């Protein structure tokens, strides 16, 4: 289809080195020079916390790129000392940077040098993928974007069918390809297929606020598995579908639904990926609902249920939108309780960065959830809400497996259930 670059199949470690050198000849260079190997990042990482295995220390995940970078700067390079990495080294780090890191950025918060490990892991994923080292299941999801328009194979016809059904079930309108719309709403196929009530809830609130909105059949999938799989070509394909659809409709605003990395990719990297400014503003659904609430267009009944909030990493710690979720809860949830470790320091769900899509780490994700379960129990509530379908999918899997007594819900669904409609 639109993508011309086939997935690299043969394994070739030298290609990883080439990619490392391209990536490191950039603003990542200071980070690659600065690590003092103090190990303080270990305790910030959920994978280290649940295994106590030093290999999960975030600083260790920087090693292959740092090694290639340092060798490239070796003064004896002019004698032909080309930086190399061994095949087994690359294979070890494939596991660590794909399965063993959710790119949640918690380690960045604790690093005394301020090194942004998540950025380097993202670049390392690209290098390893270029060399043919990648998890098959994550790559399959990314390639579904090329072939079927979505990681979960939500084609245009599937989209239309699902939305029609959701509109009926939610008793609300979901406009498709509406000309003259001012706002384009995007969907995450995880929500569309697994949490359809969430899509209905968002539609209901946008309609109640009188927003002139639509969903485009030309660009609807907000998740970006190309980015997660280290495939910049597929990342650009996904981004350009959304951007082209929004610009063709002439909308002023684009809303990302409850999905963390989708927000992070389009809001903070979309224009960089496209190589030009975008012709519209990008909002996460919590930011947009907060905006509507500030403008007096949305009102909610107060609820008595006590609950806590799980901050999706890419929306709060990596996205800067932690306050908007709290603003939505103000006056609405008087019994809301923060976790002890919350906001930008919150623990990851364990399934971000595409880890949810990789079967190999299912048991690890379930163990990581025990941190979250303990956090929730400490609040004295038994309900947690969140604003990311991927967090929700990851934690629902663990809740079922562990038969945890608590409950997990969606912020937009709770808000929609308590919407005051004129």
């Amino acid at each position, binding site marked *: 289809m639109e993508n011309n670059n086939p997935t690299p199949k043969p394994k070739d470690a030298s290609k990883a080195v080439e990619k490392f050198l391209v990536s490191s*000849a*950039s*603003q990542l*260079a*200071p*980070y690659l*020079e*600065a*690590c*003092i*190997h*103090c*190990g*303080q990042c*270990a*305790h*910030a990482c959920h994978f*280290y916390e649940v295994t106590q295995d*030093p*290999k999960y*220390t975030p*600083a*260790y995940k920087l090693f292959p790129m740092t090694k290639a970078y340092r060798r490239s700067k070796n003064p004896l390079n002019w004698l032909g000392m080309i930086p190399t990495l061994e095949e087994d080294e690359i294979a070890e780090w494939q596991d660590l940077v794909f399965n063993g890191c959710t790119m949640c950025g918690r380690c*960045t*918060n*604790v*690093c*005394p*040098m*301020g*090194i*942004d490990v998540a950025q380097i892991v993202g670049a390392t994923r690209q290098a390893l993928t270029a060399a043919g080292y990648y998890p098959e299941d994550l790559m399959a999801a990314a390639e579904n974007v090329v072939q079927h328009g979505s990681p979960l194979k939500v084609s245009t016809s599937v989209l239309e069918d699902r939305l029609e059904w959701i509109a009926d079930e939610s008793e609300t309108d979901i406009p498709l390809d509406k000309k003259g719309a001012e706002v384009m709403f995007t969907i995450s196929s995880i929500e569309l297929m697994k949490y359809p009530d969430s899509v209905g809830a968002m539609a209901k609130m946008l309609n109640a606020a009188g927003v002139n909105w639509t969903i485009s059949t030309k660009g609807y999938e907000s998740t970006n598995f190309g980015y997660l799989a280290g495939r910049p070509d597929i990342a650009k394909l996904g981004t350009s579908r959304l951007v082209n659809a929004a610009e063709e409709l002439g909308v002023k605003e684009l809303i990302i639904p409850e999905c963390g990395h989708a927000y992070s990719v389009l*809001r*903070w*990297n*979309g*224009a*960089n990926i*496209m*190589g*030009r*400014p*975008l012709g519209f503003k990008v909002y996460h659904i919590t930011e947009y609902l907060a905006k509507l609430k500030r403008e007096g267009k949305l009102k909610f009944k107060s609820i008595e249920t006590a609950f806590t909030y799980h901050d999706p990493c890419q929306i*709060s*710690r*990596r*996205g*800067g*939108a*932690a306050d908007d979720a709290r603003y939505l809860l103000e006056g609405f949830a008087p019994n809301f309780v923060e976790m002890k*470790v919350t906001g*930008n*320091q919150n623990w990851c769900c364990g399934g971000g960065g595409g880890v949810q899509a990789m079967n190999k780490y299912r048991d690890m994700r379930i163990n990581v959830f025990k941190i979250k379960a303990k956090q929730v129990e400490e609040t004295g509530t038994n309900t947690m809400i969140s604003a990311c379908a991927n967090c929700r999918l990851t934690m629902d899997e663990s809740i079922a497996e562990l038969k945890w007594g608590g409950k997990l819900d969606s912020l937009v669904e709770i808000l929609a259930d308590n919407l005051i409609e004129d």
Partner: protein
Amino acid sequence: MSDLLDFARGPALQVSVMIFIFGVLYRLISLFLTPKNFIASPARENVKGAFGAGVGEIVRRMIPDKEYMRKEMFAFLNGWAFHIGLAITVFGLAGHIMFFKKILGFGWWNLPSNFVMLAGVITLFSLIASLAHRLTDPVLRKLSTLDDYLSGGLTVLPVATGLLATMHLGLRYETLIAIHILSVCIFLIYFPFGKLMHAFLVFVTRAKTGVEMARKGVKL
């Protein structure tokens, strides 16, 4: 023996200071010359400016968030003890100030020698403690490279020899001073090529992350 001291004070120190200065400048300039990332994504509205964000992050990271401090108390306290102790020792001793005055053309008030000696002892013990921690902690052992041990060892030497010279212990005073100066020379020569450079890089990386987070409106 005065030949050794003359050599240490003279050509050895001059050459090592030159290598230190040019090495540090080379590494910093080469970093500042790396191509800037293309950033077209707009910053969040009403966030603080880049300068304030960068400086703020340099200061903020001096004390970790309480969630992390609890787990890294040793690294935090030992790190502070070492860095403050080293600063007092290097910049507070009368003999060192005379050296700086010769190079810079100006000096400053010195601290009482007993106080500086106490700081030197604390520095030495905290350095030894950090090396012992590195050798015994599984995470640190996994991360450690030759550079880590070399940087630690090359920092121990000037501190230890300086203390011996001040206390007049072991060898003749002149010999101890010569060895002390030579150990400083080795330290200065190695400084730009290994992790000792973090003394300068810490400002670059903290500020960079501070600016990037502030663009997004992340309040750390």
